[in-house]
């Protein structure tokens, strides 16, 4: 194949345009890629996005500050708690709110569980795209346990909305240590299972090694972040470089590779899962006692009991429910390390009880830009492996 591609084409050959998506089994959602093919070789690839545009950014402007939280769930529906966290951190920065340690540690633990959730879906779909069907269902077995844990905490499997401005929505449920502890005790052996099926598999190596290479400079130019850039050799992780939510109190490594191909990205993400397990273990072992919400009566809803018995609490409750709290005018750019890369919320407040503007710098969008240079000159089958290694969620791209 490669020999014929290198030879000068006869005069009469024409390229073929192939429309991949928006309804295609491997574009995960509604990405549309217009491929220009010479035989099976991709000459040109034009990604087209916007099929899942939800208008969430605009909708944020008509909601009160607290009401925006459920909207952030829907942006990246595979890593909702990370989105929750980024938004509430931004608003808390504007409010200059002090969050109690228990809430902070709980947030760390749950966002790391979210990272596992997101990486599991990525691994499963990536593997099924390359043809290994069973890995998909093994990943979803563990994801099911994770969703049960999320449901235990928040009452919802996917759209959790568990983090609130000022802390958590509820205190951790009874027995959460057992559920999380059991999960992370078994999880490393499950990762070994996936690796058994894939890491040493000659067909898997042939499909991923050297495929989708992209030089580091190009990635930096395009604003690619997360596991993609770590697989190119840069140990850039916002959890380390700008610790938020007391990430500086946790010990973990930032896995890197230098090959910058699909296999390197696969290895980085697998190792990240192992590191996340360590963080969750530390969070569980050292979980502080104390309140789960900040001591800020104008922002945090009062306890039910207090609201029924104390005049002041009743007034605050009424104000928060009817009008919402006000946020001092100003703007903030809050970035966190999302499973897919750097997620940032740029929040502008004009001093009212509703955001003036909420802009999301989403990792999927930044990473998807890298698709075009990655695909050109490669085979159709590689496009599937490359798209999988980008790990994008279309909701996150279009918001």
């Amino acid at each position: 194949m490669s020999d014929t591609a290198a030879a000068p084409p006869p005069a009469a050959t024409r390229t073929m345009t192939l429309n991949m998506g928006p309804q295609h089994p491997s574009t995960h959602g509604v990405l549309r890629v217009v491929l220009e093919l010479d035989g099976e070789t991709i000459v040109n690839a034009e990604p087209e996005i916007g099929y899942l545009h939800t208008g969430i950014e605009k909708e944020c402007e008509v909601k009160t500050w607290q009401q925006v939280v459920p909207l952030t769930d829907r942006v990246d529906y595979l890593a909702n708690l990370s989105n929750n966290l980024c938004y509430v951190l931004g608003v808390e920065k504007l409010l200059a709110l002090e969050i109690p340690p228990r809430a902070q540690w709980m947030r760390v633990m749950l966002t790391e569980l979210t990272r596992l959730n997101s990486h599991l879906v990525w691994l499963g779909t990536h593997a099924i795209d390359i043809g290994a069907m069973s890995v998909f269902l093994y990943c979803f077995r563990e994801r099911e346990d994770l969703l049960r844990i999320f449901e235990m905490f928040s009452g919802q499997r996917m759209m959790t909305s568990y983090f609130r401005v000022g802390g958590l929505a509820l205190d951790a449920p009874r027995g959460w240590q057992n559920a999380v502890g059991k999960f992370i005790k078994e999880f490393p052996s499950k990762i070994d299972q996936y690796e058994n099926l894939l890491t040493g598999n000659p067909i898997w190596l042939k499909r991923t090694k050297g495929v989708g290479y992209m030089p580091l400079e190009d990635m930096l130019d395009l604003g690619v972040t997360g596991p993609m850039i770590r697989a190119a050799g840069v140990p850039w992780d916002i959890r380390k470089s700008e610790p938020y939510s007391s990430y500086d109190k946790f010990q973990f490594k930032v896995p890197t590779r230098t090959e910058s191909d699909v296999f390197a990205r696969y290895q980085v993400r697998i190792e990240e899962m192992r590191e996340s397990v360590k963080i969750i273990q530390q969070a569980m072992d050292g979980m502080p006692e104390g309140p789960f919400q900040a001591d800020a009566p104008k922002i945090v809803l009062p306890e039910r009991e207090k609201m029924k018995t104390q005049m002041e609490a009743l007034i605050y409750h009424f104000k928060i429910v009817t009008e919402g709290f006000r946020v001092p005018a100003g703007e903030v750019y809050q970035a966190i390390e999302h499973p897919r890369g750097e997620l940032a919320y740029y929040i502008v407040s004009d001093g009212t009880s509703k955001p003036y503007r909420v802009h999301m710098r989403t990792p999927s969008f930044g990473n998807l830009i890298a698709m075009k240079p990655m695909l050109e000159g490669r085979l159709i089958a590689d496009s599937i492996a490359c798209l999988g290694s980008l790990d994008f969620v279309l909701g996150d791209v279009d918001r």
Partner: protein
Amino acid sequence: MNFFLLSLIKVGLVAAVLMTTLAYLQWVERKVIAHIQLRVGPSRVGPHGLLQPLADVIKLITKEDLIPAHVNKFFYLMAPILAVALALTSISVIPFGPQINVFGVETYMQLTDLNIGVLVLLAISGLSVYGIALAGWASNNKYALLGGLRASAQMISYELPLALAIASPLLLHNSLSLREIVNAQDGYYFGFLARWAIFQMPMPQIFAFILFMIGAFAETNRIPFDLPEAENELVAGFHTEYSSMKFAAFFMAEYANMITICALATILFLGGWHPPFPVELGSGYVPSAIFGMAAAIALFHGLNPARPKDRFTLPVFAIAFFGLAIAFAIPVLNSILLPLFWFASKTGFLLFLFIWVRGTLPRFRYDQLMRFAWAWLFPVSVVHLFATGLLVALYSN
């Protein structure tokens, strides 16, 4: 007895058995894959989903039979017919058992015993690429076209190593008739080791068997060589534009090809219907023992049901298995059923291998697949053929 009447009866029997096997092979595949993947598989239609094939057939027949406006109608309609006809034809030369005597009539358990049976099979499987290539071309769809092109290139490339892998046991047995090939594998070394081609002196054909199976996976477009219909790349490949029974025809062709090629592997390498160890060591009692045990297990689980409905279904299975166990113990039926049992269980094991691999391995890339065929499989099978020829020439006298 009248030759035509006898042939008609045999054709009817084989067709009925083959069609049932086709339908249930799909059920088995879904069940096995489901259990590999921690699912339960079909379980709604009938006990343990056993009527699922029937439901599928009804569904496929009653679906709207769509012919898109942009297709080349003649070739579009011809492709599925060609695919399924060729796939079903090849079963006619496969022998299932030795000569038997039913109500005083002597006959072979085979539709037709050609003295060039192997060549006919190869010729038919060579033609079967037309069905897929035409489907891809006539559909006038880019995904289908790519799938059709991939399929043609792949099947032609893998035909060579497949044919060479078949050639070496032929050298060993010195015949092209499938019946004689099986007969040449009768007997045992040291009284217990079967003289199957994979063990047979002077050149055990175990490598030829492996090469053949790799080629077989590619010939039948199964994972890891299922590129023509690689769902994640080409949507549905060559049958993207087909619906209803035309789609089912391709499906049937794929499964019929699988059955034929596994039967061929059994005949060429695994000694056909000969038991793996001699009758003196009790191979005649194996089926009775297996079905008896299955009956006992089914009965045990029926008495301790995991689900309420198991209380009724499992005892029925137990009775069926027990009936089979008794049937195998009756001397008159024994001589007919035993060869069929060994033939079916060997073929069934190979079919299980196909399904097992599907649940485990990822898929090759198109260029890697071609390189694998031409740069690795083809030279190895040539060398193997020469080695076999040399050894046979040196030792056969």
